[in-house]
């Protein structure tokens, strides 16, 4: 079990984060660049020390400034894979993988078989004699992973492990990496800015925004109950925060960006409201019919959705801002294009509220 609760100030940037991570599970730390993801990983690795708080792994305290504890990285039971892999350029792949075993004082005779096994498991058994500069990006990633995993760390830290790869390799390595991480018994922290990787790898997902944890939860919790606009955007849905009043006007919820007609507002108080992008219809002209929520605004962006591009995300400059998802045929049929002013509508019952 990794227990982490830290405060770190460095050159005007403040990171405050706390969470628990269980052995055998992968915790994805997701956020935009500059949100503090890498800082968090460096604190866990011991490459930086927190100003306040506590980091403990399986009951062993690694950092606790108030108690004067600051275990340096090389004395921690961690494996770390940096974003650009940082394989030692002057050593062969074999020597890179053996580096940690040698430094850790493993018997000479035991090193070669463990290195060979790690290379075999990483699928690069025949590349041991090569220099890192002779490897492709995907091979470097495997070598870096083998170098960290050969130590059997109790905490594995991965900093954007797929970001340095080209798209095709990334897809290939992604599936492999997922199987590999599932089979590991250690605590894994996985830093990424990619929503796909967050959903794919994260048993639990910790969302960081501007140095603060904005939401922690399982993939389903985040998908169903996003609690910040960034999380909603990450998960591809529309989120509003509003206030349900009392009495007859309760079905109209005031949000910071305008009023929404809600089917079932529930008790008075602060609520989150989400609207599935697929529930929103787009009309070139004012719509007739029963939808209570109609907003006018320009189309800011038309973006085809992977994998087939059959569905198109329509980003709207309405107030409140909305994202809709329509078929490619609908875009063609309605003649939608960026910059065009349209009407977006959805039913009151299309809104889900939660607290």
């Amino acid at each position, binding site marked *: 079990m990794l227990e982490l609760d830290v405060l770190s100030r460095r050159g005007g940037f403040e990171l405050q984060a706390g969470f628990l991570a269980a052995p055998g599970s992968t915790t994805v730390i997701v956020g935009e660049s500059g949100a503090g993801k890498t800082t968090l990983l460096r604190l866990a690795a011991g490459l930086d020390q927190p100003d306040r708080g506590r980091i403990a792994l399986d009951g062993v305290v690694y950092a606790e400034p108030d108690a004067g504890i600051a275990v340096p*990285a*090389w004395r921690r039971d961690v494996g*770390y894979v940096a974003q650009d892999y*940082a394989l*030692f*350029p002057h050593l062969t792949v074999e*020597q890179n993988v053996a*580096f940690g075993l040698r430094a850790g004082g493993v018997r000479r005779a035991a090193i070669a078989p463990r290195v060979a096994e790690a290379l075999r498991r990483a699928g690069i058994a025949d590349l041991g004699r090569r*220099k890192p500069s002779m490897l492709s990006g995907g091979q470097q990633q495997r070598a870096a992973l083998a170098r960290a995993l050969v130590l059997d760390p109790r905490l594995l830290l991965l900093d954007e492990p797929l970001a340095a790869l080209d798209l095709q390799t990334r897809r290939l390595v992604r599936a492999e990496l997922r199987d590999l991480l599932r089979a590991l018994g250690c605590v894994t922290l996985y830093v990424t800015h990619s929503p796909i990787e967050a959903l794919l790898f994260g048993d639990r997902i910790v969302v960081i925004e501007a140095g603060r944890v904005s939401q922690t939860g399982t993939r389903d919790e985040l998908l169903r109950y996003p609690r910040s606009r960034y999380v909603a955007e990450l998960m591809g849905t529309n989120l509003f925060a509003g206030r349900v009043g009392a009495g007859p006007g309760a079905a109209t919820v005031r949000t910071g960006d305008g009023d929404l007609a809600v089917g079932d507002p529930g008790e008075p108080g602060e609520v989150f409201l989400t609207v599935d992008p697929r529930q929103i219809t787009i009309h070139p002209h004012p719509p007739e019919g029963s939808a209570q929520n109609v907003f006018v605004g320009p189309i800011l962006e038309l973006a085809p959705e992977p994998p087939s591009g059959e569905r198109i995300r329509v980003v709207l400059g309405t107030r409140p801002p909305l994202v809709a998802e329509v078929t490619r045929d609908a875009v063609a049929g309605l003649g939608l294009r960026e910059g065009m002013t349209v009407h977006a509508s959805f039913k009151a019952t299309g809104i889900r509220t939660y607290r």
Partner: protein
Amino acid sequence: MGLGYRILLGLAVAGLFLLLGLPLAAVATRVPPADLLARMGDPMLVEALRLSLVTSAAATALVVLLGLPVSYLLATRSFPGKRLLEVLIDLPMVLPPTVAGFALLLAFGRNSPAGRSLAVLGLSIPFTTLAVVLAQAFIAAPFFISATRAGLSEVDLRYLDAAATLRASPARTLLRVMLPLAFPSMLAGAAMTWARALGEFGATITFAGNLPGVTQTMPLAVYVALQQDVDAAVAMSVLLLALSVGILLSIRLAPPWFGLLDRARARRP
């Protein structure tokens, strides 16, 4: 490129060639090669060459031994007085060597505190072979230190972080990651220091004197020979010139060498 520009460029190159190349050519062509070869067995030359090689090698070893920790400190730490230390280390590069030799003489001479302490032990440094080594080390140290310091600071922090997360103590990281990665710079710096030590004259003659077989290195022997037998001076000059060119050339050609070294190392896992 305009014509005027090209002419200016050509003039600059020609001027520099005249300044640097002409004297070298004059030395190299003064005496026919066969006569030069015959001169190579001259006892004065052999003695001076032996002394020069021994003292410059010793001075280089001394500089590497003392300069490496200092370079590491300068490359990785900041501390009060760092700027001052840097100026102090660079000083011998711009100081007239005779002044350096005089300063050494004042510091280690018979009447200095250090000299008196050594005298109690029955030791005296000035006018010994050790004085030659110290004078050369004093003058040539900045070349190694600045090159090594630059090489160590250029080692990417990512590799140091990686080493730390692979159980490597700071000492092990220095030994197995920083030094190997900075090795080309260190080697180049050591070669420059060696070449400078080999050519040292002013500090040596002031601090160590000009005693044949004890402190008379090649540059000193050239100066002496010049007043007696010009052809002997030419022979020694040509030899020194060839040594210097050899050292500088091997630094320039170093990268392919390292490739060979790497391949040799890669063979053992």
